[in-house]
């Protein structure tokens, strides 16, 4: 017997989880789409951003500064990594993936060394704390999760505007389609890649900081995040639209699935992933 209140809650939670996933996955998808690299250290960047944001928040007690600080740190890291390491890798894509793989180990141990192995969390800022009542069910809904929807939409729109309406965005889109031609026009492909990697890092850094109140940071979380990002990538497809719609579908499927069949919770997401790969490998919304 399912009542309307429960349905509202499941749908609402599905959408908010989906938006969080979009934030989380967008960086991974951007870098893959433009540079052809699966950034294995995606989860590690997310984790690092979380740790840094929490550290800043404890020092300044200011959520906004913490988020900006965490994001900025990851952008800087991304630029340094791309400029001095990734770009200089004398091999192909395989070698670059190996490099990002290596970072996971380094960042994980570094984080553990600095902040210890304990899980940590961040608290939502006072204006976004608290919950609203849901009609028809005894539960309430946290305001911060609702605000994630807003953040996610803002970022999605901003990304879309950037890619569709700016010259730089046009260059990126052209670079995805035809690298040689872009180079032929005289565009500095190296700078393009650095910029894209920086943008991807910005997205994942922002996600890690904004996500910290919902997803606790601890060693091992980096792999969880990477896996989630990959699931979204597969289901939605390697585009911003794909990321958004894919995330929402996963968020909803996850919530509905866990509600109806909690015993299958562990299989759910990977089962969907395998199914989509078998039926429509390019993703649903490519």
């Amino acid at each position, binding site marked *: 017997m399912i009542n309307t209140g429960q349905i509202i809650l499941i749908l609402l939670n599905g959408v908010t989880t989906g938006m969080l996933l979009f934030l989380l996955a967008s960086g991974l998808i951007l870098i893959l789409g433009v540079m052809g690299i699966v950034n294995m250290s995606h989860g590690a960047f997310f984790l690092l951003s979380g740790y840094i944001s929490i550290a800043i928040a404890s020092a300044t007690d200011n959520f906004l500064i913490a988020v900006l600080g965490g994001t900025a740190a990851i952008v800087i890291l991304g630029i340094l990594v791309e400029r001095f390491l990734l770009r200089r890798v004398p091999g192909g894509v395989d070698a670059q993936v190996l490099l990002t793989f290596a970072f996971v180990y380094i960042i*994980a141990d570094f984080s553990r060394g600095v902040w210890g192995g304990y899980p940590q969390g961040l608290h939502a800022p006072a204006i976004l704390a608290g919950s609203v009542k849901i009609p028809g069910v005894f539960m309430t809904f946290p305001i911060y999760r609702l605000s994630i929807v807003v953040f996610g939409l803002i970022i999605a729109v901003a990304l879309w505007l950037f890619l569709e309406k700016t010259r730089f965005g046009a260059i990126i889109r052209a670079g995805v389609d035809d690298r040689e031609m872009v180079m032929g026009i005289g565009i500095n492909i190296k700078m393009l890649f650095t910029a894209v990697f920086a943008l991807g890092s910005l997205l994942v850094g922002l996600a890690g900081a904004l996500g910290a109140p919902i997803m606790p940071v601890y060693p091992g979380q980096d792999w969880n995040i990477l896996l989630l990002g990959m699931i979204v990538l597969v289901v939605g497809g390697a585009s911003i639209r794909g990321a958004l719609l894919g995330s929402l579908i996963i968020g909803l499927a996850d919530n509905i699935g866990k509600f109806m069949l909690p015993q299958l919770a562990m299989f759910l997401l990977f089962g969907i992933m*395998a199914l989509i*790969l078998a039926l429509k490998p390019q993703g649903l919304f490519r």
Partner: protein
Amino acid sequence: MAFPQFMPVYHTYLLTEVLIYLIFALSLNLLMGYTGLVSLGHAAFWGTGGYAVALLMSKGVVDNFFLCTGAALLASAILACIFGFLALRTSGVYFIMITLALGQMLWALAWRWESFTGGSNGLHGVTRPDFLASWSQVNSISFYYLILIIVIPTILLIYRITTSPFGQTLVGIRENEPRMQALGYNTWRYKYSCYVLAAIFGALAGALKVFQDGSINPGSFSITISGLVVLMVLTGGAGSFAGPILGASVVWVIKSIVSSYTSYWGAALGIILVIIVMFSPQGITPLLTKPLVKLNQRLWNP
């Protein structure tokens, strides 16, 4: 060749582990290095091989080393035949993803099906073969020799496969699949065969590991193991025969020995990898073989 009688027992143990991971890395290399199909779910076969042995032995169904190992190979081959149909519908990044998904699903299955697989606790009670009993069950030396006797012919077998026309065709598919198809090769069949072969050798490694440890748990299916073996292949150099051998040794030695000195062995591994990638992205092998080849040339062409 290292003779364990002259080494501390733990070193025999480590060497046995390296030999096992060597086979595992070589098996993945067939798929990854020679055919160009990167798998992030190769642990699926390591785990299947391992669980096949563990299930038979811990439930007391079969006690014989060879039968259990044979069952492991068979189970893995069957699984690969089924998975292969699904996985080979994709290529590139998507192949990576689907192998990952399949591996994770097996992990979830092993974790949840408690009555059968022992759940998160796993299965215990795998004992080493009886014919080694004269040396005592927990003596590592006799087991080391058993592993050696199995591993050396396996390495030779894999070597023959890679240098055979079959192996060369795989390389051709990696380099330019449409061209191979144009030449009349049924590339799908070659990839499928390779996938199943890689699964069988991977299962052999997994089965041997269970005899080494005496137990198994769902971690054997995890992305940690899949990632580790990919790391081994890439470190040594994918596509070369010696690459996985070197890679498995280096990665395993770092993990086992460095971890005794610091809990930050992960960072050590990562840093070494970065250095390798920046200076020798084909892996470590070219660093060794180039000087050896030069030496060889000079010896035979004075």
